[in-house]
């Protein structure tokens, strides 16, 4: 079946199998930031934003995403300038092997849009579906806290 998908503001017409997952279709379209990892809704690496909310593309039918806005990490960098979340992750060493980072960046983006000044606890809560096997999570959490601090947000940790 033919499907229209709006990814990062661009409309794609794509031929899919009805049972195909959003993860597979996005990767086929070239959005390789969307990682295939556990493939069973456990690790958060395939996170994309659907209408601004983080969801797992490995267990979302591509067909279900028509008529909705999909965002991947490719949309974060603009004209060679990284998004503040990406900058901050680099500064704190949040990205080591980097495999899980697209999922983290998108989940963090959704969090900061809903709650611009999250506490450390709220950050931990928001990121708890994203697994990282390198860092122990401290650096990613610090990356988001630093953004809050730079904006003049209160630190209550």
């Amino acid at each position: 079946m033919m499907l229209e998908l709006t990814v990062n503001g661009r409309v794609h017409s794509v031929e899919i199998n009805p049972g195909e997952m959003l993860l597979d279709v996005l990767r086929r379209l070239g959005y390789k930031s969307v990682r295939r990892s556990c493939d069973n809704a456990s690790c958060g690496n395939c996170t994309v934003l659907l209408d601004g909310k983080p969801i797992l593309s490995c267990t979302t039918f591509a067909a279900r995403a028509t008529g909705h806005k999909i965002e991947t990490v490719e949309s974060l960098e603009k004209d060679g300038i990284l998004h503040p979340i990406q900058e901050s992750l680099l500064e704190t060493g949040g990205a080591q092997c980097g495999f899980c980072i697209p999922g983290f960046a998108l989940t963090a983006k959704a969090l900061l849009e809903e709650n611009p000044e999250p506490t450390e606890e709220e950050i931990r809560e928001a990121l708890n579906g994203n697994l990282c096997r390198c860092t122990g999570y401290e650096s990613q959490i610090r990356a988001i806290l630093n953004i809050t601090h730079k904006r003049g947000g209160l630190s209550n940790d």
Partner: protein
Amino acid sequence: MSFDVLMPESEDELLTLLMSENAKIMAGGTDILVRIRAGKIKPEKIISLSKVRGMDEIIDKGDRIYIGCKVTHSAALSSEILKEHSPIMLMALREIGSPQIRNRGTIVGNIVNASPAGDSIIPLYLSNARVVISGPKGEYKLPIEEFIKGPGKTALSIGEFVRAVEFEKSGSWYPLFYKVGQRTAMAIAIASIGLLVKDNNLRIAFGSVAPTVVRAYKAERYFERNNGNIAVMDEFIELCMEYISPIDDVRASAWYRKEVIKNLLRDTFNSLRKKVL
């Protein structure tokens, strides 16, 4: 893994499709797609609710709350009606999966999966929930304890689906929900406990320690008989344990689960005494 995906747009269309053989209905898909991938079920057709209009309502019905089958955990967590009238439900929903899972998974999906570990099922047992079933014969309601028959087993017949769930408000009760899992996020409970206390009344339920979530009615009556107190903790625990028949599985042994429940009960009632009793 090959199956057809059907996306009906109305309830009538949905009911027609539900008559087909080897079809599975799906809301968020956070559970069913994982089970398909693991080869545990092999449906030929998946009927997705995603395009069906409506069914995503949370309604204040006086002394009860009505939640449609497309209401996600996230939507329920931000509902003012639930915040005010069912804090126990919010406590349980916060324990579910991760933000990604809560954005897709639904409360009714939790019910239909009938997992003994389903976090949102505990508050539903505590709130005397009724499952609203729609099918060829029209609509009818079943108490949740009659609806859930065992792990993954429900009273649903062919052609039927769960349209909604409704349950009592409990805003005036003191709520408590506690879950023991292997890690904070995404963990399926090893054992969990939920309770509501108001004056001499207690409602108490356990998850992951029997084929279904269970309510310990004898323990509730013991509490009432003792005028809202627990005279002898061991007697109270004994009554709770009558409802518990845990199994050994990948997450924990039956012995461990029993010990966890006993310890949870002691800790819970020690801290409750300080707060409300």
